């Protein structure tokens, strides 16, 4: 197990290098270099060239890459163009909000999807299965932003039950339980909008995984021994069916984080996604690059965690 962990960690090193290479390459697509945005007509070109040399922009591209990489490794992601604040700091302070949103969307998706998937599998080809399948297809086919604005339209505007955007009531001075309840009210709609698509995927996956397991010999053995059907389903089958679902987590993590970019924008949720979308319109390339590297690393870590968890819960996995 320990060997496996070490090897898995070592395997992610080339991926980390790859992530920095791709991010750096994308940065080269930006029109001009960072200096070209700062040139005013009355600036003399010698000063510009001197500044370019100072920033290393006159160096060959691979030298620039290694410079950028060494800065990155020491925790310097550059500074925002408008505010001049360190990019790393700007991103890090947005992480908790994004984590809260994605984690609750994940939790919502799994808590609802797994039981529904099991029902769908047990009632295969029944009305319930048919309806759930239809629902899953609808969930997969609805753009998350359309789901988001529909939710706002129905629950916030028409029914006036929940707030349209933001993440807590400002100026109410709520404390304790009231404050938590208030935050939950703000969390509910974005969580639903982000989680629904995921829910549909997990449900379909649970269904097919469950069907696979129910056809296994050991399930027939368990039934033949006269074990109660409920025990067979929930103890023997479900536990085994849940294992591959852990891998689904790793696969859908990028989509979930990508989805949070849109959902955060719709609901004015103060997370990384909204920072990113604002940075796109403000042409804040340093922020975009920082986000790109950081988000990719987060996905990498998520995958690593999912793999390790999978190896941990499934004793059949071979480490060699």
């Amino acid at each position, binding site marked *: 197990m320990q060997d496996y962990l070490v090897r898995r960690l070592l395997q992610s090193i080339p991926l980390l290098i790859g992530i920095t290479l791709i991010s750096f390459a994308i940065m080269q697509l930006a029109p001009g270099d960072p200096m070209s945005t700062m040139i005013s007509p009355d600036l003399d070109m010698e000063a510009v060239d001197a500044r370019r040399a100072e920033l290393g922009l006159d160096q060959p591209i691979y030298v620039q890459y290694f410079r950028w990489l060494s800065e990155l490794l020491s925790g310097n992601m550059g500074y925002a163009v408008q505010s001049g604040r360190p990019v790393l700091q700007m991103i890090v302070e947005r992480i908790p909000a994004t984590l809260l949103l994605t984690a609750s969307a994940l939790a919502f998706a799994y808590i609802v999807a797994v039981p529904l998937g099991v029902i769908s599998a047990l009632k295969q080809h029944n009305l319930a299965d048919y309806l759930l399948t239809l629902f899953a297809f609808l969930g997969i086919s609805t753009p998350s932003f359309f789901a988001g*604005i529909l939710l706002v339209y129905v629950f916030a505007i028409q029914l006036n039950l929940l707030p349209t955007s933001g993440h807590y009531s400002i100026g109410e001075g709520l404390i304790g339980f009231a404050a938590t309840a208030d935050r939950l009210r703000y969390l509910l709609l974005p969580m639903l909008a982000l989680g629904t698509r995921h829910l549909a995927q997990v449900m379909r996956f649970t269904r097919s995984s469950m069907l696979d397991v129910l056809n296994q010999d050991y399930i027939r053995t368990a039934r033949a021994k006269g074990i109660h059907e409920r025990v067979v389903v929930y103890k023997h089958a479900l536990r085994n069916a849940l294992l591959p679902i852990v891998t689904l987590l790793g696969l859908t993590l990028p989509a979930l984080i990508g989805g949070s970019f849109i959902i955060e924008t719709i609901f004015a949720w103060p997370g990384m996604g909204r920072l990113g979308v604002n940075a796109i319109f403000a042409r804040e390339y340093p922020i975009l690059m920082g986000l790109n590297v950081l988000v990719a690393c987060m996905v990498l870590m998520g995958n690593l965690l999912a793999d390790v968890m999978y190896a941990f819960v499934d004793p059949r996995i071979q480490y060699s």
Partner: protein
Amino acid sequence: MDGSVSGGKVEKSAIAGHSLLQQVWRRFRRHKLALGGLVVVGLFVLMSVFAPMIAPYNPYRSFTRSDGSYASWERPSAKHWLGTDDVGRDVLSRLIFAGRVSMSVGLVAVLVATAIGVALGATAGFFGGLVDNVIMRLTDTVLCFPVLFLVLIVATMVGPSIYNIMIIIGCVYWTRVCRLVRAEFLRLREMEFTEASRALGASSNRIIWRHLIPNAISPIVVFGTLFIAEAILIEASLSFLGAGVQPPVASWGNMLHQASSFVVLSRRPWLWIPPGLAIMAVVLSVNFIGDGLREALDPHQQL
């Protein structure tokens, strides 16, 4: 297919009756939802192709009121079935023309993605070794980036024209096709027919094109179909954020962008509900078709 054949042709048509395509079609037909999806997508495609004839007005024409001001934000009426937008353009006409943009972006993006994915996946799976290792690490790396964010950034940097968006989505989305084709090739290259053709002196090139790719085509087709749905969603998301297809050209995504205004969202639902429903209808139908194709093409399901 054709009943009135005579002599030697009878046998031929009997064989043709069991051609792979006909078998697939027979199994596909059983999947009612997929069949329904095919009809809906067919209608949308016809609508897009014949948009200039179907659309009641020019999608760029701004209607004016008698006082010369824009006839903006008119409610749905007999004249404008889906009302008018902020500068008095007919929403229904824009919706019809937007279908052209949204669906062709989806289709071309998938063609680009499939081309890249098949090329890389085939190379990795066939040659193995170091080549395989490098390509798979590249794939793993690209998979770490959320597709939407990557597309957003690149589109911002190179400029969001329709063609750029098609190519960018394709260049970001090849990874899963690549993995799929590689896995198929790893399996197929160990099969006896591959060995046999190699023994007969066939070149690698010939083996790949004549034997391996035709055998790997079913999963590629299924994935490609499902990707069209994904690509349409990505384009819509991009345009919804305002970083995709740019006005005045209409796409379903950028028509929904108007809903980011609170007034439009709350009081003028006719502007944003129809394009949203159009996206859902097409994507849902494409997903149904993909599901039907999977069942029809999957050899394990053969009775």
